[in-house]
């Protein structure tokens, strides 16, 4: 199509087409939303875009948005994979809490810190094994299957805390805190970790058949099975990915607070993660995985939060603004609502 128009039409006539194609690109709306928020921020608080070097690391509101969005974005990437299979994982917040408890427990037991890092990721893997068992083997609805771990996970975290006394003592770990709050030359380490996770997932989803299978299972599990895809194993692996991503976020968050608090750590992060996937263009009816869009979605959420805080509005407005953003995004995604809007505008014009 594009080849036809570019040869049959003069060069300048092809530009609107290219603009149209750009407008139709799925990354354009979350991208524009992020840009809009940042522009408003630039007007509201001068100096929003200045990036300085303080104590040998980059410093500024933009870096802050990236820095704080990293754990949510990591969880959201795993969530995007699960949502791509028409599922959902409500237990990510609880997985973070369990990981935090495990890290704190093993550090006080005196394990080598590299082993603890692996142990934390393995904890996420075990949680993913549990969720996958319920969803892929027992065929339980994903919302309900992951609800079980969501309800009991924070309790499990509290029980692990009891093993070493039931308090939340703080800990120091050069390795874990280096990953979380440290920096490599100018760049915060957690951004590098986040980029690494993104790249690994991108290679897995876009450069192997695994991604294709995931999307085919989400699009139509029955058709995928008939085409010879082992739908159960694909579904299972999606929950493993989500569990490990949540565990990675758990390591970053636990090391950041220097302690494990299973009651409040990662609270409501599942909602933010789902929101990031939806803003990024992912549909809850499955079949599509947009990793880049998901990261943009997480940045939009964090930029909103940061701008509410820097603009001097009380932080209580955060939830309401978030809710309105979700509703607007969902309405824009719905064909019925768009049609109603278009006919309303058309009637006005007449």
């Amino acid at each position, binding site marked *: 199509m594009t080849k036809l128009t570019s040869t049959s039409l003069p060069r300048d006539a092809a530009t609107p087409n290219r603009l149209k194609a750009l407008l139709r690109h799925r990354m354009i709306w979350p991208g524009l939303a992020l840009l809009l928020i940042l522009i408003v921020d630039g007007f509201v608080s001068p100096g929003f875009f200045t990036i300085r070097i303080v104590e040998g690391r980059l410093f500024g509101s933009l870096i802050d948005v990236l820095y704080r969005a990293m754990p949510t974005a990591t969880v959201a990437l795993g969530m995007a994979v699960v949502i791509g299979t028409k599922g*959902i994982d409500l237990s990510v917040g609880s997985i973070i809490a369990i990981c935090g408890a495990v890290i704190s427990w093993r550090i006080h037991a005196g394990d080598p810190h590299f082993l603890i890092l692996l142990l934390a990721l393995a904890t996420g893997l075990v949680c993913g094994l549990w969720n996958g068992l*319920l969803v892929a083997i*027992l*065929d*339980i*609805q994903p*919302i*309900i*299957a992951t*609800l*079980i*771990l*969501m*309800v*009991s*996970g*924070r*309790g*499990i*975290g*509290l*029980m692990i805390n*009891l093993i070493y006394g*039931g308090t939340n003592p703080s800990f120091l770990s050069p390795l874990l805190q280096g990953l979380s709050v440290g920096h490599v030359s100018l760049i915060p380490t957690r951004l590098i970790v986040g980029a690494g996770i993104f790249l690994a997932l991108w290679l897995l989803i876009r450069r192997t058949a695994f991604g294709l299978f995931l999307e085919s299972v989400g699009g139509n599990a029955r058709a995928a099975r008939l085409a010879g895809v082992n739908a159960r194993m694909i579904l299972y692996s999606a929950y493993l990915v989500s569990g490990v991503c949540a565990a990675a976020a758990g390591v970053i968050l636990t090391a950041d607070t220097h302690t494990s608090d299973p009651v409040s750590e990662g609270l409501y992060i599942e*909602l933010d993660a*789902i929101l990031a996937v*939806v803003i990024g263009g992912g549909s*809850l*009816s499955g079949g599509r995985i947009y990793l880049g869009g998901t990261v943009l979605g997480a940045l939009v959420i964090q930029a909103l939060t940061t701008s509410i805080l820097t603009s001097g509005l*009380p932080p*209580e*407005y*955060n*939830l*309401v*603004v*978030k*809710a*309105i953003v*979700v*509703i607007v995004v*969902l*309405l824009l*995604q*719905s*064909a*019925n*609502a768009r049609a*109603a809007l278009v006919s309303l505008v058309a009637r006005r014009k007449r």
Partner: protein
Amino acid sequence: MSEKYLPLTATIAVFSILFLTGGFLYNHFLSTLVLGDILADNAFVIIAAIGTTFVILSGGIDLSIGSMIGFVGVAMANLDLAGWHPLASAALMIVFGAGFGALQGFIIDFCEIQPFIITLAGLFLLRGACFMVNLDAVPLRHPFVSAFAGWSIPLPGDGFLASSAVVMLVALLVAVGIAHWTSFGANVYAIGGDRVSAALMGVPIRRTLVKIYALGGLYSALGGIVYALYTSSGYPLAGTGTELSAIASVVLGGTLLTGGVGFVFGTLFGGMILGLIATLINFNGSLNGAWIMISGGLLLFLFIVLQRFLIGSLRFGTAS
């Protein structure tokens, strides 16, 4: 016995076993006092769960319950400050709850969005609205509130049925009537069983869905009113996580999450099982509060697996 009644029977059996276990372990556990306390403490959860039962019977889900309870409490406390009679503000809140639920139901059907994500937005919106009104607990000072909290019906034994429990039981009877003796109730079961077949048989899908979510909103608002009157205050964090307890109560009550099968009456026992577990753990004294979360999750798991195999057997039953 029909397989239809199996989950409900299992629920009542679990409740009885837990209650008798408590009786064996602790003196004075098997009394109307303990039973009345469980009913009174969990009345607001069970009321909200009754509304959720309709939503789940239709194959949907409502996550905005807990925020609705918090918002209703905060709104009633502020209307109380403005000099409203609690009954007047309660009536307003009932209308608000039904309207909010209806709006959610309409968006779910009109935009063809999963109920999960729309009611999640509702959760954010109402909880955010609570925080915007005030951040601290506000007491309800009207004399009616203390009169309501103090009123109760004495039961045989030492126990008594608190006013909140009475409201809950009346709400339960009304809901049972709606579910089993109205055409709306039949439509709910039809939509949950098979939405396409229901539409082909002439069930008005949109009108029924809007009514279902309106009913869900109404019952969660009623739960919020009972909670505010029972605690005599409006607290913006009130009801956090109640949606999970309500959904768990519905599941433990024997309603299938796939929709179409279940009883409103079972939800009462589902909610009471959760209350009973908390009471048992409190009676023990040496057990940590974390056990409440874990045992809740464990029971949820057992019931869901039970349901899973029941659905399997029901399917085979129709196939052969």
